[in-house]
């Protein structure tokens, strides 16, 4: 009976994702060829060290603990699915997507989260006409590096200040999302401006993102908080192992 329960739950999750994903992508990844070569190369150079540290960190953690692999698998699937899931925002009349880097960063750490994000972005650029290979580095920096570190610092900082798990998770998800779009605005404005001044174009792009990303950031915050709390209820030992919680916080 338990097996049937497990199967039906897996099928239910799979079918939910299928229904949500069965539309072409409309997203924030910078499309192929938008950035000039020198800017695209610069963002690649910025992204490479973070991805390299992510690979080392993943190998080290997977050696120590076998339960790390399914957690990374889950987070990879979550980041991949969430970051190509177009969500309509009626107040703006547009579609965009959350990033998923907030939850990944909290659970597996910022560097592994960056690695996961870069793999997800590569698959999307190659097969889903979503993002681009030339803009892969820029997309890794905005969604992977900034998203992951914004979430991680926010979560750790708020927990240190005594905030609850849900509040910290919410703020981490929110700032991961907004941080990503802020960085996309910087990348885009600096890449396409030509001789035009940087700041006016940057503000123009950032303000254009706000009607869509303001509510989506809140949604991402709620999703992140929900997932952290769910894992706390189901596997508090895992959160202790991943240093999200201290052992004494779970023992009560």
């Amino acid at each position, binding site marked *: 009976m338990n097996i049937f329960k497990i199967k039906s739950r897996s099928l239910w999750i799979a079918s939910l994702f299928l229904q949500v994903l069965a539309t072409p992508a409309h997203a924030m990844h910078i499309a192929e060829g938008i950035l000039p070569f020198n800017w695209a190369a610069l963002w690649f150079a910025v992204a490479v060290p973070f991805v390299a540290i992510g690979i080392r960190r993943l190998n080290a953690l997977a050696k120590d603990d076998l339960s790390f692999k399914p*957690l990374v698998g889950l987070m990879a699937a979550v980041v991949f699915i969430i970051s190509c899931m177009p969500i309509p925002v009626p107040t703006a009349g547009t579609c965009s997507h959350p990033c998923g880097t907030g939850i990944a960063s909290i659970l597996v750490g910022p560097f592994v989260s960056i690695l996961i994000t870069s793999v997800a972005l590569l698959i999307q650029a190659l097969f889903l006409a979503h993002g681009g290979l030339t803009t892969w580095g820029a997309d890794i920096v905005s969604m992977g590096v900034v998203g992951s570190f914004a979430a991680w610092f926010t979560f750790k900082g708020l927990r240190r200040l005594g905030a609850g798990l849900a509040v910290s998770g919410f703020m981490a998800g929110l700032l991961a999302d907004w941080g990503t779009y802020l960085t996309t605005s910087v990348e885009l404005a600096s890449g396409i401006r030509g001789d035009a001044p940087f700041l006016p174009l940057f503000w123009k792009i950032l303000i254009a993102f706000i009607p869509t990303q303001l509510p989506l950031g809140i949604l991402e915050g709620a999703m992140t908080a929900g997932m952290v709390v769910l894992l706390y209820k189901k596997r508090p030992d895992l959160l202790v192992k991943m240093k999200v919680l201290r052992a004494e916080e779970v023992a009560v």
Partner: protein
Amino acid sequence: MNRGTGTRDWGVVKKLLILSLFGIYFCLPTSVFCSEKWPGVDESVVEKYAKEHGREAWTPFINTDQGDLLLFVFLLAGAVGGFVAGYSWRMLIVEKAPGIKEAAQKKKS
């Protein structure tokens, strides 16, 4: 007051609240700011401003954005992603991950 019934009532109220919020969200008219229905921010922001500054998006190297092909690729990606998520979740939550399972078996023996 019956505590159990109270909790159940609150649960129903919560569900109704969430459902009505979803209803309001999706029934709201789309904004007057957009002439086209539901464009992605890649079109309405990224590509729009890039075009204004003389940069246009290239055709993807592997162009799956042709007819229903993109729909198929997204469906496939969703299926694979959903399977991986479901399988990993089962490993983590239901089977408590291989490391823990083995440790528990060792402890028993």
